[in-house]
């Protein structure tokens, strides 16, 4: 899509301003029903677009994302814009610098249309935990778009942006991508700078693209990835050649096809594997023995890190809430009680508990060790296969309100995605079709750490085979 749109700008069929205007008009018409955006940056977007058009007129060249309108999850800092992370405690916070990914998008010429809705501090799987509004799934407005990057997914699926950035701590890009029929890519831990991303769990968070095609995901990833001195965990990745399907060994972990998984999703993934086999790939059943412990492990490590990351919000330095308290301690307690919704509270308290004296070893250290075993499972698997294919989610998009009252049932929607975060691996959701109700279904491809470009190339191949043999 990105290349086609840029071709249209090049041959004069459209301009960056016209394209931006078109998306802004659609947002005005339909954002209220979908609820994808929290903030629309109309003036800024049009000014950016004008500049792109001027540059194109004088230079005759377009940068890789020049003129392409995009949406940014509201936990990523865009200078001068309101950045709430979906939380009341940041309701009035205006970002004072650009995140590294935003700097890179801007210098590649992307047009930022606005900031998208999310579960508060990216904590959730349905975007219902936002303090401001509930985003709907564009395929069925009674259903959730997934989460936590639900606003970003809904924006792209509803054609309210060409692509969007999300963040993924336990599945928050891939799960909404699966629910909304999009490509959603979580890069290797360390592939994309987290500088300017409001932290949830620092050893798990990654920023990545939500797009209509793998090619678009690749273009965006190429733009935003790379080493950054402001995120010491980042590494420079090498490019990769296009893999040949006949040489590919694909692992299918038996632990991901368990009872409870939606039948149509299982059939869809199996059908995809059959197509790949027909195309010449070597499909092998493998075992990732610690899979069933991944979610429990995640629900110790993530809250532990979140409780530390969220300790900084005191409502004294920025985004003051209207508080009645006067003393220092009173302000602190009131701000955090009123400012955080139920899910952040649960995770802060849980994280504080698992890190507290007497429980640290039994919970946190134990979980760290299990995390190592989960990572080891993958390392062993990648000795004999090139990629792993699994379902992305156990069910398609569920109805609004269905899981809101029971946190554990909500957490279970991430059961197939958390492992890649725990092991730091790149993983992508690929749309594979629709169920009888017309809801999108997705398959997940997981690759070895830092083989992001090879994984994207492979995903592009799988996408083509899936479409050609449809």
């Amino acid at each position: 899509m990105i290349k086609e749109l840029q071709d249209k700008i090049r041959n004069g069929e459209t301009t960056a301003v016209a394209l931006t205007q078109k998306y802004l008009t659609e947002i005005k018409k339909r954002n209220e029903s979908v609820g994808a955006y929290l903030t629309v940056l109309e003036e800024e977007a049009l000014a950016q677009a004008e500049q792109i058009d001027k540059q194109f007129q004088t230079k005759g060249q377009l940068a890789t994302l020049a003129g392409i309108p995009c949406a940014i999850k509201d936990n990523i800092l865009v200078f001068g814009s309101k950045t709430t992370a979906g939380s009341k405690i940041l309701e009035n916070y205006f970002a004072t610098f650009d995140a590294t990914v935003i700097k890179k998008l801007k210098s590649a010429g992307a047009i930022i249309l606005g900031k998208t809705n999310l579960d508060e501090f990216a904590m959730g799987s349905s975007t219902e935990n936002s303090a401001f509004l509930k985003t709907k799934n564009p395929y069925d407005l009674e259903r959730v778009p997934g989460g936590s990057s639900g606003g970003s997914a809904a924006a792209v699926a509803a054609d309210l942006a060409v692509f969007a950035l999300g963040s993924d701590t336990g599945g928050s890009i891939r799960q909404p991508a699966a629910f909304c029929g999009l490509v959603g890519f979580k890069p290797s831990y360390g592939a994309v700078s987290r500088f300017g991303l409001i932290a949830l769990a620092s050893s798990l968070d990654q920023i990545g693209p939500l797009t209509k095609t793998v090619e678009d995901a690749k273009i965006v990833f190429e733009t935003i990835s790379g080493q950054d001195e402001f995120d010491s965990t980042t590494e420079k990745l090498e490019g990769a050649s296009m893999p040949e399907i006949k040489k590919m060994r694909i692992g299918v972990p038996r632990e991901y096809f368990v009872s409870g998984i939606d039948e149509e999703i299982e059939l869809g993934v199996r059908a995809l594997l059959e197509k790949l086999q027909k195309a010449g790939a070597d499909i092998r059943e493998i075992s990732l023995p610690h899979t069933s412990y991944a979610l429990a492990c995640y629900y110790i490590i993530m809250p532990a890190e979140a409780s530390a990351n969220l300790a900084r919000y005191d409502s004294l330095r920025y985004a003051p809430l209207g508080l009645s308290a006067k003393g220092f301690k009173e302000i602190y307690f009131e701000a955090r009680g009123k400012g955080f919704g139920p899910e952040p509270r649960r995770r802060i308290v849980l994280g504080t508990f698992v890190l507290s004296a007497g429980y640290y070893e039994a919970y946190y250290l134990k979980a760290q060790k299990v995390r190592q075993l989960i990572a080891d499972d993958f390392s062993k698997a990648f000795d004999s296969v090139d990629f792993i294919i699994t379902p992305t989610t156990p069910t398609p998009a569920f109805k609004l309100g269905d899981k809101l009252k029971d946190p554990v049932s909500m957490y279970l929607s991430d059961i197939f995605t958390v492992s890649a975060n725990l092991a730091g691996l790149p993983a992508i959701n690929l749309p594979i079709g629709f169920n009888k109700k017309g809801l999108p279904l997705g398959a997940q491809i997981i690759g070895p750490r830092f083989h992001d470009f090879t994984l994207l190339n492979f995903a592009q191949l799988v996408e083509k085979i899936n479409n050609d043999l449809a």
Partner: protein
Amino acid sequence: MSVAKFNIDHLLELCRIKISAQEKESLEKDLLKILEYVEMLDKVDTSKVSQQDLKSHKNVLRSDSAEIFKTAPLSLIDQFLESENNYLKIPPIFDHD
């Protein structure tokens, strides 16, 4: 880790969070459910994972340099609840009672 005992009031104090009695009750219930779920980790044999495995990280350093942030339309200082000479002004931290 079996059957975690936690004191919700103490935890909320550590977390600096004040909520109503009703909210506290539902939070407590949710925490019990989550802790019950994560108890399954007890079954995993982690005896062969050494502390060393968990510390494969290296230090990455950079030189510190001051950067003047752009201030328009709003600087961080503009967003302070109260400020004096560009310093954040807050109520006293220590009580005298």
